[in-house]
């Protein structure tokens, strides 16, 4: 361990070429056979290794109820990495990573297995020089959280002592309502200290989402008009073309609002609407996000401004898609929503009176996530009405995925002798969004966990503030039937009616 007061003579703040590399450490993944681990986490670890962003001393530990040895896990990890990695495959990189892979078999209620895990970590301290630093990734079903956390408490795994740091990574869902999320937060915080808990919202790891902050706070062009004086309304959309697949067990009973609205959409809203943080560090950002989340208001007339839907069979992108109720393991009388739309307000001086329309759904025509800010019409148009018939409202769209970038829509003269003005869209693609090899959100987030940088992670106050928004909505929906919409359409009719009532329409993404 570095002595106190030691500063590395080779590090220099002006040296922007040398990347930040975490301290020597171990990454322990619980539920390593699961979907998330195979599709995202293991490929991300390989990509980090390939980019040289893992520390000299590093170990990857898998924990799962399989009768496996290190080699079996290594095989699974290799197959996952080959399938999911963004960077080119290099045998050499893999071989070195494989040399630091360990597997500990066991179920979560198996005391012996956790003792072995603890023992393995201690051994790695010497053999791999990890200095007692470890991050635990809970890639497991939420009901298993308490068991695993208690095991870690019992064995002292969560306790860094004076050996180094111990961090835990928690995946969504962070509970299913305010009460349960509080319980979960209390439980996690009682085992780890609050600063060592990293909640993943992978949207925040995306380049464009971070770019939204750069766009707002590094420019003079946008911030002066980023308020109720100029903004007419904001639409935040997260559409998926897929159905629920095999996730019925988790999805049914939870639904679109808990699965997406509570976390991703509200986080995007927070970043769009928040005030300028005093600096770009985790605490300052959190303060602003919590403020704006706390200022969110629900419409008084929920009948008119909250819509939920459920897809029925239809055609999507040239293929037939079955309805939600026909999906395997979904009860025939399920009232779970697969689409949710709501109008929210933000009660601050900046945003008073500006509606924020949020929507999310499955089996919509295409996969797209975007934030669209629509501006007010010019207060006076010096042109004859006929000339500006086709002129809509100016719009600024942040495309989060796919085709990350920005679109601007504004009026322009139609070439020709007559003075006619119509809308043109200007698309802006920039940067590493082009490249296959640009880091995946999980890669960025895992690296940040190992570095201990919490900037891109929602803290428990934010999670609780989000549930406070959602709980009344869920209470209102209890016992109601979701509206039906055909797979392959942009959601139920009620959702369109909701905007029509306000004299607006959803943007077609």
């Amino acid at each position: 361990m570095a002595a106190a007061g030691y500063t590395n003579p080779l590090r220099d703040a002006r040296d922007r070429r040398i990347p930040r590399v975490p301290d020597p450490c171990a990454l322990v993944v619980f539920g390593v056979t699961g979907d998330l681990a195979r599709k995202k986490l293991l490929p991300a670890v390989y990509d980090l290794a390939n980019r040289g962003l893992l520390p000299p001393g590093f170990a990857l530990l898998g924990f799962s109820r399989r009768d496996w040895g290190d080699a079996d896990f290594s095989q699974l990890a290799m197959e996952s990495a080959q399938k999911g990695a963004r960077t080119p495959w290099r045998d050499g990189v893999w071989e070195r990573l494989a040399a630091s892979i360990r597997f500990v078999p066991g179920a979560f209620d198996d005391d012996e297995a956790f003792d072995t895990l603890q023992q393995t970590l201690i051994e790695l301290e010497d053999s791999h020089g990890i200095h007692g630093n470890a991050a635990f990734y809970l890639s497991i079903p939420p009901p298993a959280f308490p068991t695993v956390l208690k095991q870690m408490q019992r064995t002292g795994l969560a306790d860094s002592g004076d050996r180094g740091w111990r961090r835990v990574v928690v995946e969504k869902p962070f509970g299913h309502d305010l009460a349960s999320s509080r319980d979960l937060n209390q439980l996690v915080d009682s085992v780890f200290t609050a600063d060592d808990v990293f909640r993943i919202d992978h949207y925040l790891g995306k380049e464009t989402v971070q770019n939204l902050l750069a766009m707002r706070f590094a420019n003079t062009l946008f911030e002066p008009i980023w308020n109720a004086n100029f903004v007419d309304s904001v639409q935040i959309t997260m559409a998926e073309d897929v159905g629920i697949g095999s996730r019925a067990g988790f999805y049914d009973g939870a639904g679109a609002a808990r699965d997406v609205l509570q976390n991703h959409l509200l986080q995007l809203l927070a970043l769009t609407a928040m005030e300028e943080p005093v600096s770009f560090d985790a605490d300052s950002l959190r303060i602003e996000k919590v403020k704006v989340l706390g200022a969110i208001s629900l419409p008084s007339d929920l009948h008119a401004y909250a819509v939920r839907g459920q897809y029925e069979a239809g055609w999507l992108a040239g293929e037939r898609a079955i309805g939600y109720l026909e999906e395997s393991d979904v009860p025939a009388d399920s009232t779970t929503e697969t689409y949710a739309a709501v109008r929210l307000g933000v009660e601050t001086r900046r945003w008073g009176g500006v509606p924020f329309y949020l929507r999310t759904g499955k089996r919509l025509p295409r996969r797209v996530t975007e934030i669209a800010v629509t501006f007010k019409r010019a207060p006076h148009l010096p042109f004859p009405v006929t000339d500006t018939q086709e002129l809509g409202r100016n719009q600024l769209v942040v495309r989060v995925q796919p085709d990350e970038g920005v679109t601007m829509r504004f009026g322009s003269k139609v070439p020709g002798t007559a003075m006619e003005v119509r809308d043109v869209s200007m698309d802006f693609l920039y940067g590493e969004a082009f490249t296959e090899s640009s880091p995946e959100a999980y890669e960025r987030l895992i690296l940040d966990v190992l570095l201990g940088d919490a900037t891109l992670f929602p803290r428990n106050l934010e999670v609780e503030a989000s549930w406070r928004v959602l709980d009344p909505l869920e209470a209102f929906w209890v016992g109601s039937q979701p509206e039906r919409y055909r797979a392959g359409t942009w959601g139920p009719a009620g959702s369109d009616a909701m905007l029509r009532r306000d004299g607006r329409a959803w943007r077609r993404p």
Partner: protein
Amino acid sequence: MTTLWDTTGKEIVEALSAERRSTGAVAFGLVLTLVAVVDERNVRSAIDAATTASMAHPCRTLMVVRRQPEADTPRLDAEISIGGTGGPGETIVLRMWGRLALHAESVVLPLLAPDAPVVTWWHGEPPPHISHDPLGVLADRRVTDSAAAADPPAALHARAHDYRPGDTDLAWPRLTGWRSLLAAAFDACPDAAGPVTVYAERKNPSAVLLAGWLGPRLRSDVAVEDSAGPGITEVRVAAAPGAGSEVPLLSVVRTDGRTAVLSRSGQPDRTLPLPRRERGDLLAEELRRLDADQVYAEALAAAFSLTELNDRPQHRRHVWRDIAEAPSERIGEFLPGVSDVRATGGHTDPSTVEETAREMLAADRADQAKAAAAVGDTTAAP
């Protein structure tokens, strides 16, 4: 793609804007113009590198290919391509024959993307004095590659004496992997370092820079020794004298150009990826930041016992040499790295390089002082 034979700069500008319109590249996120000075033999490899770099930094690339400067009649050919295989940006290959090759800037200037920064990159042998090359003088950032020179350490020596903020050499990003690894190794290494030895292939300019970077920071003597390569093969840091140990504090060994072994006393060896990188990657790293790299300047200064490179003026005054009048047998001197020059120029010896660089620096300092005085005058005026 549009190809223009025996054309003019004006026609190229028109063809470029027609091509932009027809491919719909109207609102490109162009962030800079890259001017690449490249020899005919290397056009392909330079385009590949520029393509890789433009993936990360969409840019307009102007490839300046100088050909047969002795030819009697000047001539200009151009190939324009947007998007497609050239990456997301725009690529224009400009081939210049005859004396036009010596006035490439006249073709380049109208083609620069409006108000975007300009980076000039010499793919081959760099010019000993950038002030002699208008393509370098007009750039905000200049990237050379001393490893491509006939005598790399001499070329790096010229870079040091000729330095202005905003210059870098690809020998520097070739070190980023080494530097990252060494920095990580020293994160947990409070023991004082003793003498350092860098082993590298003969005449490796990166090794010289690495020594310049390590020496002042570790307050150690750094020796550079020859090895079989490829590139840098080992960095060995001895324990500080008096620490009572013969064992080196740490060493990093890379013999295959791909993986390194980090050994530290009292700890198990670690194997880490440390690949030699493609030119495109190096260039992409250079294009990330367009301001001066002070850490590079310090390493370069230390390597050649210079001081205060960071305080030099940003600006270079173009030193006009009327090459059009130059006798054919001396043209090679003016155009290092052009393969179809029949007569190659005489070798410039280090002391001449230093002398010329000193004169140029004095001129640029004078310009800077004049500019500062002028500003003072206007603010002082009532």
